[in-house]
Each structure stands twice: as C-alpha cells, then as structure tokens.
C-alpha cells in the first residue's frame, strides 16, 4: 500500500518586494520559501492512514522544483514520510499547472501508488488545478476540496466529503486509486521539530530527471504549456478617504468632493 503526496514549495512575499526586470515574477531576493500550507494537511492525512496501522503503508512525497525544494521535502520527511522524490530539469521552468500535472502523472505511473493526495491549491499561484490535471493524465477519478476522508488501505473505494459553497458538504464515494485534493482544516498537521528536520537530512531525497520518467524537454516548460504568464504587476491603488464629522459636515464634504471631481 502506497500513498503519493504531491507537495509544492511556495513563495511568500517579503516586505517591500520588487518585481523582476522581465516583469513576469517577483524578484527572487524578496521571496521567502516554505511548504504550501495545504500540503501540510494532505501529508498529515496520509500520515494518519499510515499510523492507523492496519496494513503497511508507505508515504512518498514528490515535488517538482529546483534544489531549494529539498528543504521543504526534508520537513515532510521529518514529519514521517518514508521517501521523497524531487523532479527537476531546467527546461521545467515556466511550466503551468497542467504541465506539472503531466510530470506528476509520469511519476505516479512509475510509483504505482494506491492513492494520490495533493493540496487544493498552492498559496502562491492558486490555480487549484495541478492535482486535477494529474488525475486527468492518469485517467483516474478525482475529488477536489476534500474536507473529510474515510478510507481503509486496500479498499476499492473511499468516501470523501467535499466542501461546497455556502457551507454545504457533499458526500462522495470514489473508486480507488484516485486523486484527492485536500482542503485546509481536514486534520491538525503535526509540528516538525527542528531536530526532526535535521535528522531527516540523513534520509535521501531521490532526484529524478525527465528522462527517468519517460518525458523530455518537449513535454514541459513555457513553450509546452497551455498558458503562460505575460506580466506581473501591482495595480495602481484606488483612492479612498474616510469622511468624518457630523452628518451635516459629512454631507458638505461629500458635495465638495463631488464638485472637485466634476471640476466645478
């Protein structure tokens, strides 16, 4: 029994950041990297199944990204994942969520897991489609925004509750293997102590190239993605002003502003 957990190292903005010269992203100097918040929950969900202990369960985390991603993978290992895989090739740079899904699906074919968990979305890009596109490439069933999971390792199906708008829950029975994208709050992720992370440094992270999973540069990258970023920018701020004082004063002020606006 094996669960594959797809994780991402996301970027958060530092104070007073600057946009890169090519205007496609924030300057890397101003980014702080950490594991995507959703992935803490999907890993925890996998760990819960592993620790329920009815059958031997292997939890494998996989991520697509450069060297720096090892730090986040190590955090996953510290939390108890058995193995970690990192896929990278410079040609992957600029891939959209669908192309990443293609890579993850290729990994899944190699690993043959019984379940794949991914976060609903990443906090930096928020496409919410990597998990789903993986399912599509594998031709597996999927359930998105899973807020509750009942699953026994080895079972042919699982029951999930999906979070819908307006506080609705939808209970779905889904055939396995399947891809589930896990929502925040499904569990309480454990704390990875720094000692744990340090000790996890001893566990190897398997580095996988495109060729290892039967892909090539022509399957990934900006050129082979169905969408690409044209520009990233900070919109000019709209003006807002708090009008204070008595009702009469406020009204007078309002009239004055309107007049100014009309150019009276």
């Amino acid at each position, binding site marked *: 029994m094996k669960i594959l957990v797809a994780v991402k190292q996301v970027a958060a903005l*530092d104070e007073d950041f600057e946009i890169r010269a090519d205007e496609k992203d924030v300057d890397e100097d101003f980014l702080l990297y950490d594991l995507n918040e959703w992935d803490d929950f999907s890993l925890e969900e996998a760990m819960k199944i592993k620790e329920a202990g009815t059958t031997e369960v292997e939890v494998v985390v996989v991520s697509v990204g450069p060297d720096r991603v090892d730090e986040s993978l190590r955090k996953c290992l510290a939390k108890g994942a058995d193995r970690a895989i990192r896929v990278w090739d410079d040609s992957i740079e600029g891939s959209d969520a669908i192309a990443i899904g293609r890579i993850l699906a290729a990994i899944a074919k190699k690993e043959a897991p019984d379940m794949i968990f991914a976060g609903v979305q990443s906090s930096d890009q928020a496409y919410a489609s990597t998990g789903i596109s993986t399912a599509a490439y594998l031709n597996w069933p999927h359930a998105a925004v899973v807020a509750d999971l009942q699953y026994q390792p080895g079972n042919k199906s699982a029951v999930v509750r999906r979070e819908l708008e307006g506080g609705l829950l939808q209970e779905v029975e889904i055939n396995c293997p399947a891809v589930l994208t896990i929502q925040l709050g499904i569990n309480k992720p454990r704390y990875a*102590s*720094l000692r744990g992370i340090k000790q996890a440094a001893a566990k190897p992270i398997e580095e996988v190239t495109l060729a290892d999973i039967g892909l090539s540069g022509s399957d990934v990258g900006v050129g082979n993605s169905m969408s690409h970023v044209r520009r990233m920018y900070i919109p000019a701020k709209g003006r807002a002003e708090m009008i204070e004082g008595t009702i009469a004063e406020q009204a007078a002020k309002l009239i004055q502003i309107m007049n100014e606006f009309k150019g009276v």
Partner: protein
Amino acid sequence: MDNSKEITRVLFENFQPQAIHLFYAIGYLAIAVFIYGVYVQIRKYRRGKPDGSWTELFKRFVEMVKTMATHRTLVRRDKSAGRAHGLIFLGFVLLFIGTATITLEYDILEPLFGIKFWYGNFYLLFSLVLDLAGLGLIVGLIYMMYRRKWLHLPKLDYKRVDRQEGDPDFDRSQYRREDWAFLWSFILIGITGFILEATRLVWLNDRPAVWDYRMWSPVGALLAHIMQALGMTSESAGAFRPYLWWFHGLLSLTFIACIPYTKIKHIFTAAASLMFKDPLAGRRLPKVPDDQKTAGYKTITDLTWKNLLHLDACTKCGRCQEACPANAVGAPLSPRDVILSLREFANHALSAKELPKEAELDIHGKDVGQVFMETLWSCRTCLACVEICPVAVEHVPIIVQMRRNLVEAGEMEPLLEKTLQTIHKTGNSFGESKRKRANWTKELPFEIKDARAEPVDVLWFVGDYASFDPRNQKVTQSFAKLMHHAGVNFGLLFESELNAGNDVRRVGEEGLYELLASSNIGTLQACDFASIVTTDPHSFNTIRNEYPDFGGKFEIEHYTTLVKRLIETGQVKLKKKLDYRVTFHDPCHLGRYNKGFDAPREVIKLLGCELVEMGRNRDNSFCCGAGGGRIWIPDPVGIEKPSANRMKEAGQIEGLQVFVVSCPKDLTMFEDALKTSGFEGQFVVRELIELIDECIEYEVWEDSAVTA
C-alpha cells in the same frame, strides 16, 4: 572535674547476656534493613542517565558542608523554621557522633585493643554537650510541631493544584501522616532518652561517681530531681529502667532502619543534592547530545541520576510553590508537585528488581505520577523555585527537558507552534522581514555603525522586542542616543541578528535554538568587537551562559552596568535630577538568573529618584509572566495574570510615581497590566532608559560639541 575511670555511663549493667545478644541481633537487623534500603535507592539512581557532575568533588563537598553548617539556604525567607531545623540538625549530628563514639570504644577499640577513653573529663564534657544537643533537638521538634499544627502555612498544605478531588493521586494525606510519624518518633526518642538518663541517675544515686557529677547532664539531673520529688526511689527506678531502655533502644533502631524508606532519608539525599548542585541550573540548560535520537524526557529513565536524586531530596517544604508565579495565579502548576509526582513515579517504577516495560515508564499523561502537559506549559522558567529550594532541587531543567519531548510530539498551544514556525522562517518572533530589524534606526539623527563591516568597541545585540515592538523601539532609540552621545564606539548586526533563542530554548524547541544560537555565534565571530551590550535580559542570559556551550565565548553585559559606568566616569552627564518616588522590578533573567540586582538600583539612585522596594524584590522578584515562552501563549481567561498580581503589589506603595523596569518584555507586560489594574493614572511604567533619557539634554550637548 575528675579524670577517674569510674566516671562514665553504665551501658549494659544488670542486663542478662541473652538480653544483650538479643539487642545486638536487633541492632544488626536494623542495619541490614537500612543497608538494603540504601542499596535499593542507589540501584534506582543508577537506572538514570549519566550526568557529568562528578567533577571538583572536593570543592563541592566543602560547599555542601558550608551550606549545611550555616543552614544558609534554610533560614532564607523562613527564619524560625530554619533555626528550628538548625537545632534539630545540630542535635541529631551531635547525638549521632556521641553514639558513634560509644560504639567506637565499646565495640571496637576496647575489645580489640583494650583502649578506653570514654570516662572522666572527656565523659563529663561529652555528657554536657549531648544533653544540650538533646535539648536543642526537642525544642526544635516542638517548634516544628507547633508550626505544622497551628501556623496553617499555605506552603505546608499538600492540596494539589494539578489534580481534581477524586483523582487517584489527589490525596496527599499519606504525606501528612508521615510528617507526624516522623516528628513524634523523633521527639519520643529524645524525650525517652532524657527520662532514661534521669532514671539512671535516680537508680544510681548512691554512687558518687554518678550522682556527684549529675550536673554535667543538667536536663537529666533536673528530671531526676523531679522524679525523686514525685517519690521515685532507687529501686523503682532500677525496675523501671529496663522497660524504658528497651523502648528507647527499639524506637531508635527502628528509626535507623526506616531512614532509606521514609522522608528521613533526606538526611542523605538532601546532602547529596546540595553537593551536586549546579550553580548554573536553569541558566544554562543541558545540551542534547548529537547522537541522541529523541530530545527531552519521555520516560522516567530518561532522567539523569542527578535528577532522580533531586527528586528524593525534596522535603516538601513548599518554598518553591510559595515563590512560583504560576502557582500564585492559580495555574495548575506547583513545582513541588512536579517533583513529588515524579518521585512517586520513580519509586514505583524503578524500585523493583526488574525494570517495567518501556510503556509503563512514560512520565507524560494523566495517570498516577504522570505530569500533565498543562502543568508543564504553565511554567514561566522564572527560576524562583530553583533559587529558593533549600536542598538544591533543580526543577527547571526537568520541566524544560519534559517540554522538549512535548515539542517533538507537537503537544503545544497552536499559537506557540505558529510562533516557533515564524521564528524558524523569519528569525524573529514578530514574523517581520529580516530587513526590517533595524528600521528603528531610520528615525535617528545619526548613523549607527554596521559591526559586520567595521570594527567597533561595543556590539549591541538588540533582541526581538527591542527591535520590533513599537513601544520598545522608542526605548531602543533612546539608548542609541545615549550611547552615541557618550561617545561609545558601537555597532549593530542589522538584519544578520536573529532571535537570541533564550525563550525558544526554554520552550523546549532545542533544534530551533541550536539553529539560532549557531547562526548568531557565527555572525558574532565574524565581527570585530571587544564586548557585547544588550538591553534585553533574555538575550543577555543565553549569550552569557549558554552560547559558550556552542563555542561562542563573548564578553557581554546588560546595559545597566554599562550605563552605571558611563555615568560614574562622567561620559554621560546628568543635567538634572529626578525626584520621583519609584519602585524597581527585577527582571528574572537579569536578577535571579544573573544576579544583576545592584546596577539598576544604583543608576536609579544616581538619577536622584527615591527607590521604594516592593515586598518581593531582588532574588524574590515576581515574574511578569512572560518567561519560558509564555509571552507567545495566551494566558487563560478568568485567572489573574502574574503581571496583574505584580501591579497590585506595586499599588500598595504609598505615593508611587514610576514602576521602573529594565527589560523590553517587562515594559510590554506591565504597561498592559497597568491598564486593567485600577492604578492607571496613579503611577506609570517606565523603562529605566527612559528615566535616564529625561536627565540628559542632548541638544545642548550637540551644540557644545559643535562649537568646541
């Protein structure tokens, strides 16, 4: 006096040989029971982990003897009890030496070598000393009984704060029974000893070698006269004596046999605990060995032998509980109960021949003898308990070791967890960007040197609160101005400074601490400076006491000593005097942790303020509640905060104008507490730097500097 051999005490006169043999048999049995008990105890300690306190044994021994001889730890904050204990202790020691002397002559020197010395002048002096010792013992014990029965001291109440009525280990009446059994048996031994002596005198009143010298045992003689007056004759005394003799003898032997099994063992364990006392306990927490898989204490066998010994040394005196700020505000923590729980646990689990299974050794949980996680998280690592414990029990290292285990298991407040992650990510507890660490310098009219780029005399380690908290930034700026105008050549680490890690370590996140400490040490070592100064007592403590364990040996001082020097040498000129009536709150990490009691007080006096002490001051200062990471854990609603408790205390001071602190966290905690204390408007909370600031006229200086 008379040195004749006649003058001595009869030992077994008129005893049948069988009776003497029986007595010896019982004596040997008592000793055997005693030795077995000692063996079991030592086996228990040996089941603990190793500890490196076996160094400088001679020095340790001398210190221990000094402490015991002077009773200096016992008279603190409880003079009468300390003195009464002194009488009991002295009485016991002298009586023990006395009995040992008799044994030495009667059972060893005389039968083997025919040497006798216990007669004549020596005997008389011996008699007198022992009589007085016995009297002291009884007086001391009577006071202790009175104290237990009538003083109703809260610290002697064993009511548990961490357990509910009905919990299996809620009931501590067993301890009370033991206390009384101890007192009564001890005092009975003393009283029967005197009656026995008097009976002997009455019995032998026709022997001049006895009767004529009776005043050398004044208490016995007095009793003898009373007994005679009540009509006791030599014959009746002779007939009564054997009964009394057996009673006294058996009681004494039972007492000896019981030592290793009852609280009496503190005679040995307390002494040993004092001997292995760590002067840096809590100030410098133990490192986790690199090869150790898990951090902290999970099972009772994770404790070191020294910890286990400390558990046994506790005499339940309750001084730690009385001093504990968490306990004072009703948190489910009593340092004494932590010690006693673990002691009960150790006695139960480690006294049998075979060690129980690993699972039965877990000291965390809600079962008998286990320590609740809420209890551990209530501790503010203020060190008040360690500091006052008369027998050198070191609670804080044990509590932190247990927290380390909780941290690894992720059993902590979500908010604390978040803070730790934040510190890991950003290097500060405010979650601010590293770049913003020195933003407070932007408003200064001068540039501060970058110690990473150029050599400075003084490197200022600012710390998180002083760097990021807006209220504290004002103080930080004032201190920068002060140093600048005093002409101190100083610099900062700017964004390379990370949280010093003092509180992270006390939370129990040792891995994160190692990361922060080694990073800071690396940064500091790359700079060229003579010494470090900080306004933050927390950073001060860890850099001073703990960084050396990680290879970072630096000269560091708290700003109070530096400023005092600057004022005294005239580098800082006070242009006016303040006439405030102030009180001073000793920050735990400056005062109790590092004995920095005097410098801030002297500065306050140099400023011209009238200093009125609060009841709890200096080593007995009352924690603001922020220590041990509690500043990152919300205090439970509905119970008083330690800081509010402290405000009440300050409010008692007539005409108080300023509550002076010298710690950024104190400023935050107490300004907050003042708002709800009901004293707002009566007095204010100020950092000492702000008072100094009032006395310096910067502009004038600057002008004169320019024109000069």
